[in-house]
């Protein structure tokens, strides 16, 4: 009997180039878009984009924006964003975007070209130790030194980026790896990394304790963050809030995790949160944090934060729990899975007294601004009007500054992934490229970047990208001719000495749009606001609406840095009769 040797199909492997292996691996991960900017080391990989269409390369005008576009794509789609740059300056230009993704737990994979392995470490032309530089701002990073590591590392990188607490992963690709050849076979089975096993299932005993604490609480508050959106747990939050009758507040990154029109919603909390959210948290006896990390912009002075409350903290990242303040009931796990288990144990409850109290906070301390007939456009009313005209289906991104806080306060956001903002790092110039990424991820949606003039000027070269690819992003500039948020601090804490915050010289945004081949409009009268917004929405393609707003307007409420949330400044102290402070409210 002769034994016939045969190779099972899955073990048969072809020899492919490094560039080809990368392209195939990205295809296997479901990548649709790569945001990038070329360089000589990438030639063989770039060449593949000429004839193939499975993955589209989007040529950005600056690498920082490639990273932000990847973030915007990831945040709008729930998938992993990908960017690709050359070695040296191409790679270092990514660092702000990578750090932004790290701070806000956004899954992106960054591919960087590198000089050949034989000269790595020699200060070769356009060499930068990007792996060393990004070690503290990536979940993990790789310098590929062997062809055999290429495909497995790419697969691991996507796994690490999207699982557990998501985040950026960088893969540094030396030129000889891109040019080299290796056998390739489609990998099978689960990725298994010995040192990386995120826990997703909450401990049953802890979940029981949570349910009991909810049952016993008289004045509970749910405090939800970006983790709820990453875990796709909005429905579970809504179910818990409704069943146990709990008011809900959110962080900047949590906006959209709970519909702002729901009567249980308190809006955003923290430094520029609503007074009623901060008051409810100050008074609550149980604070249920889900996928949030007690950032200092949220807590104010930590020792004065939620002092009457027992704290439950549900988070996939054990290092986030107990980091800033002590937690009575920690639950490590995926927000969706944990909340599902909790929801099974929670019985319907009504908390009439607590809601009466919260309603009183809302009535007595609403968000307010004053717009005078014939006066300048107030940024708040611009956002309210935009929100009405755009409707609940639009996706909003923001830059960083006053406009961002007004957007967080006044936009109606009904769905997760519809509000995209740079929270942890607070990166000016994030919103516009993020909007481009979001628009590619959700071509069916109206995507609007709520911009400050200062922030937009950091990234406006990407107008070319929107025109080249026909990406219909709308840039809604709240133009106060200055770096408003810094100016606000000078106004309140530096005796109105306005140093280095004026942007009197800026481009004519209508001409700027035209220069890139896009449309634009400029307004400064209140009566033009609604029609201009309507025109922006109905004009196809990219559009800049330059809204000249009152440069003297400040964001309130405001908790002074380092102060207790309880002592927030409610109204503009420059105007007469401030409405008072939270501590003035008598207990019922």
């Amino acid at each position, binding site marked *: 009997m002769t034994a016939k040797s045969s190779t099972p199909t899955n073990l048969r492997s072809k020899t492919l180039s490094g560039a080809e292996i990368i392209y195939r691996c990205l295809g296997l991960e479901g990548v649709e878009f790569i945001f990038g900017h070329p360089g000589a080391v990438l030639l063989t990989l770039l060449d593949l984009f000429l004839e193939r269409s499975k993955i589209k390369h989007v040529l950005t005008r600056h690498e920082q924006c490639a990273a932000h576009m990847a973030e915007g794509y990831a945040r709008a789609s729930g998938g992993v964003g990908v960017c690709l740059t050359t070695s040296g300056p191409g790679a270092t230009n990514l660092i702000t975007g990578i750090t932004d993704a790290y701070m806000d737990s956004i899954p992106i994979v960054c591919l960087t070209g590198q000089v050949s392995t034989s000269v790595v470490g020699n200060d070769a032309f356009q060499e930068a130790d990007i792996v060393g530089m990004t*070690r503290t701002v990536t979940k*993990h990073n790789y310098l590929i030194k062997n062809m055999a590591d290429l495909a497995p590392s790419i697969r691991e990188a996507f796994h690490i980026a999207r699982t557990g607490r998501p985040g950026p992963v960088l893969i540094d690709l030396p030129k000889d790896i891109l040019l080299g050849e290796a056998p390739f076979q489609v990998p099978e089975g689960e990725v298994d990394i010995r*040192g990386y096993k995120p826990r997703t299932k909450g401990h049953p005993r802890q979940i029981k304790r949570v349910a009991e604490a909810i049952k016993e609480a008289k004045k509970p508050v749910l405090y939800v963050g970006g983790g709820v959106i990453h875990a796709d747990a909005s429905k579970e939050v809504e179910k818990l809030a409704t069943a146990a009758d709990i008011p809900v507040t959110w962080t900047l990154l949590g906006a959209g995790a709970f519909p702002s029109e729901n009567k249980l919603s308190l809006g955003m909390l923290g430094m520029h949160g609503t007074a009623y959210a901060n008051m409810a948290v100050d008074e609550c006896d149980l604070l249920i944090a889900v996928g949030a990390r007690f950032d200092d912009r949220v807590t104010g002075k930590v020792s004065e934060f939620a002092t009457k409350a027992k704290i439950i903290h549900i988070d996939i990242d054990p*290092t986030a729990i107990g980091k800033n303040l002590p937690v009575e009931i920690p639950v490590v796990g995926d927000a969706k899975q944990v909340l599902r288990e909790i929801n099974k144990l929670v019985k319907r409850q009504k908390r009439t007294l607590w809601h009466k109290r919260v309603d009183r906070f809302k009535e007595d301390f609403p968000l307010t601004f004053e717009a005078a007939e014939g006066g300048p456009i107030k940024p708040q009313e611009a956002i309210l009007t935009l929100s009405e005209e755009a409707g609940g289906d639009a996706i909003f991104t923001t830059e960083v500054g006053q406009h961002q806080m007004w957007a967080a306060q006044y936009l109606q956001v009904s769905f997760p992934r519809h509000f995209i903002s740079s929270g942890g790092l607070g990166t000016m110039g994030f919103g516009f490229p993020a909007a481009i990424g979001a628009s590619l991820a959700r071509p069916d949606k109206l995507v609007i970047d709520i911009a400050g003039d200062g922030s937009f000027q950091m990234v406006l070269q990407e107008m070319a990208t929107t025109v080249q690819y026909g990406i219909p992003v709308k840039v809604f500039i709240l133009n106060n001719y200055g770096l408003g948020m810094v100016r606000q601090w000078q106004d309140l804490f530096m005796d109105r000495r306005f140093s280095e915050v004026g942007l009197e010289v800026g481009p004519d945004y209508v001409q700027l749009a035209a220069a890139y081949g896009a449309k634009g409009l400029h307004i400064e009268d209140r009566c033009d606001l609604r029609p201009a917004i309507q025109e922006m929405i109905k004009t196809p393609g990219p559009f800049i609406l330059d809204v000249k707003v009152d440069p003297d307007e400040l964001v309130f409420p405001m908790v002074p840095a380092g102060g207790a949330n309880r002592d927030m400044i409610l109204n503009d102290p420059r105007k007469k009769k401030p409405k008072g402070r939270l501590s003035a409210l008598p207990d019922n």
Partner: protein
Amino acid sequence: MRQVFSILVNNHAGVLSHVSGLFARRGYNIESIAAGPTENPEATRIVIVAFGEEETLEQIAHQLRKLYDVLEVEQLQYNRSVTRELVLATVSADADKRTEVLQIANAFGANIVNITDNTVTLEASGNDHKTRILIKALERYGISNMARTGMIALPFDEMTDEWEPLA
């Protein structure tokens, strides 16, 4: 609080700086760090002795566990582990003091590795307590040069409830 971390990591370039960087970012000085191969050629054991507040050290342990290349983190307790350090020290010892120094070395089981007209260089190993007392005893004569490996440690495998650790 003083804490001994025993950290098993992948034997990859850059891991040591990543691990020590976590301590540095929190502003905690590492008192000693020792790394070396293990029974598994792909893994390295790093032993770090650090001072800090308990919560911060706890937080650092959590953060270490998050690193891809970190396979295990153990916070060792003194009475449940064996710790050792190697010390090399050159001590001033003129002819009239030499006998005293050699006696001390002898009492601590230290080996003499070099003797000159006015110095003695010795090699001693032991746990924290022993090396500290030895160094203190030698300081009286003047230590002109010293090198220490930093502590290495292993937890005890316990056999029975009544079993008593030896060191």
